[in-house]
């Protein structure tokens, strides 16, 4: 059934699905003003002390971040809190960009 479903998918439907699929990229690659969600597993690449600190600072399960300033430091906003992260940490946090809302 699955094979059949894929077989009938049009090229435009496929492109749309790929475009909307959650692609995880390093936090350091987001542009200024861009938003993204962070999964808990996104912090797995960090040492435990930094992972625990980031979680306690608000980078918890499925939180949304906004990039205030990319680069070093990477400044992000979570709720009303701004955090400054060195580039080496921002590179190791994988996030899912939030697509702009469709009109």
């Amino acid at each position: 059934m699955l094979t059949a479903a894929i077989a009938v998918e049009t090229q435009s439907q496929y492109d749309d699905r790929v475009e909307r699929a959650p692609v995880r990229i390093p936090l350091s690659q987001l542009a200024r003003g861009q938003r993204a969600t962070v999964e808990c597993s996104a912090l797995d690449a960090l040492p435990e002390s930094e992972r625990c600190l980031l979680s306690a600072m608000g980078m918890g399960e499925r939180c949304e971040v906004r990039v205030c300033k990319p680069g070093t430091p990477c400044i992000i906003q979570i709720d009303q809190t701004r955090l400054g992260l060195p580039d080496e940490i921002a590179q190791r946090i994988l996030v899912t960009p939030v697509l702009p809302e469709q009109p």
Partner: protein
Amino acid sequence: MSKRVALLGNPNTGKSSLFNRLCGLRSKTANFPGSTVEHQVGTCAISSGAEVTIIDLPGIYSLRLELPESAVCADCLDGRIGDGRPDAALVVVDANNLPRNLQFAASALRRGLPTVIAVNMIDLAQRRGLHIDAAQASRVLGVPVVPVSARTGSGMDELKAALAATLASRARPAPEIELPNGEPGSAASARWSASVLDAIVAGSLQRASHTQLHDRLDWAFTHPRLGILLFAGVMAMLFAAIFWLAQYPMEWVDLLFASLGGVAQRAIPTGILQDLIVNGVIGGVAATVVFLPQILLLFFLLALLEDSGYLARAAFAIDRIMRRFGLPGQAFMPLLSAHACALPAVMATRLIPSRRDRIATIMAIPFMSCSARVPVYALLTTLLFVGRPWAAGAAFISCYALGAVAGIATAALVGRSVLRGSPTPMLLELPAYRLPSIAQAARVSLDRGLLFLRNAGSVILAIAVVMWWLSAHPVVQPPESATELRAQASQLKLQDPATADALDLRAARIEQQAQQSGSFAGTAGRALEPIFAPIGLDRQLTVAVLTSFLAREVFTTTVFVLTGAGSDAESGDGTTLDVVRSAKRDDGTLLFSTATSASLLVFFVLALQCLPTVAVVARETGSWKWAIGQLAFMSIAAYALALATFRVLA
């Protein structure tokens, strides 16, 4: 004994403002035994006649992080340190950041202490469209929840009443209240926080209108080049303020101690007790306390910068430079403070979470040119460049530069050898920009000043008395020349009082010189002269360098006394300096040759001649090994470079 309330919360929740609102100036900085983590303790009247002790614990993100601050908070709540478990906990949460703050509150509630939750900055949250149902929050959380604004003072009476009621009833968090099992940041904790928010909050925070402006300010303040330029500008203004504004109150302090010495001299009969009080106690303490205005001003301005939100950004700007030398960005504040005095600077390293980074910073701090070196730099650069003030000024600035370069190079060396590893990446919450509170800055400054005075009254006073005793004993009989001058002066007293006074003064100088030479300190000077001779010092300068271990600025006083130029090193008039400049050694050569002056200058920039700093380093690192190692390293480095300077110029 009054009941004790532990005040805790996340950083930047206005916890310190709330503490100040509750306790006013009735507070002091303290440490738990065996810990270098500071906390404030104050008293607060919560109802008529009832006072409680508030323990303001450091701001933390979780009670279970592997950080000294988290461990101290957890140990305090569990009664492992201090005087047993506190009677209650007062948890501060930021109304504008409830999702994260509520998770922390839950972890505090799990400790099982009678608890009150203060929802701070409620005025700001209400203006931004958020309404919190405090009664519903109390029902959901099972403890009193009080909306307050520490800034305006609203809700403080209700908070005190809630505290009084909680302490009276000893009511613990209701057992039927469900709390998350996970720590702040865990999925369970986040879900719990979201469900509580649904129940107690109406509306949602409107996005702040100045977000774009704050983004731009963050960009500028943390920019690799612009950020450094702005930082340099801010620091230049800070230094200018410290050195120019503080000079007037410093003169007043100097005058105050001079008159205090005069009063003591008149009140106490001439003898050993007068000498001890005037020269040992008052003179010794004055040499350190004179720098109090600089310290107060430095911490006041730093507190204003910190409260404005700028310093956290500046730490990131400077971090990329400091990390190349094995130092973290947080090191810049202690290194900056060290230009006033190394003692509070070493204590300020407590802000640096990593022990490796803290020790690397402590190793660099004593190289920074503190205020006590200033009179020595002023004397030696003036002697080096007679009639060339610009050259003297350039040499003066070079001393600061040499100290800074030596400090950073030492940190890099220690970081790559003994300590190993690289500085911990800086991960900081950037506080919101706001107008700094002058009252809060004044309180921080006063607190630091009192801490400094406590040191001056204990460690420094003890050292002053020991050094006085070594230079005043054994008592040396006045030389014949002095006795003759005294006799001539007494004959001329009625006919020519001015000449008699001058003769008395000369006699006093000869007696002082004889006493210095014959005292234990003088004997040590002669014994150690062979060690200091290769860098150009004779017996007199060896004594001056030895006495400068009391406090560096004592060097100038000793030089002026030993050369007979008078004991007032601050006078600086041409005649007095001429006497020092033309002073001779026992072999008839100039005491201050160019080579000797330059060698001494290098020695004073690099040497750790401050025993209180050694004691504080031992306390802060928790080991005499670091303190003694630092003393040895700096002494060897100072001697080697002074020797090289002397050899090149001699």
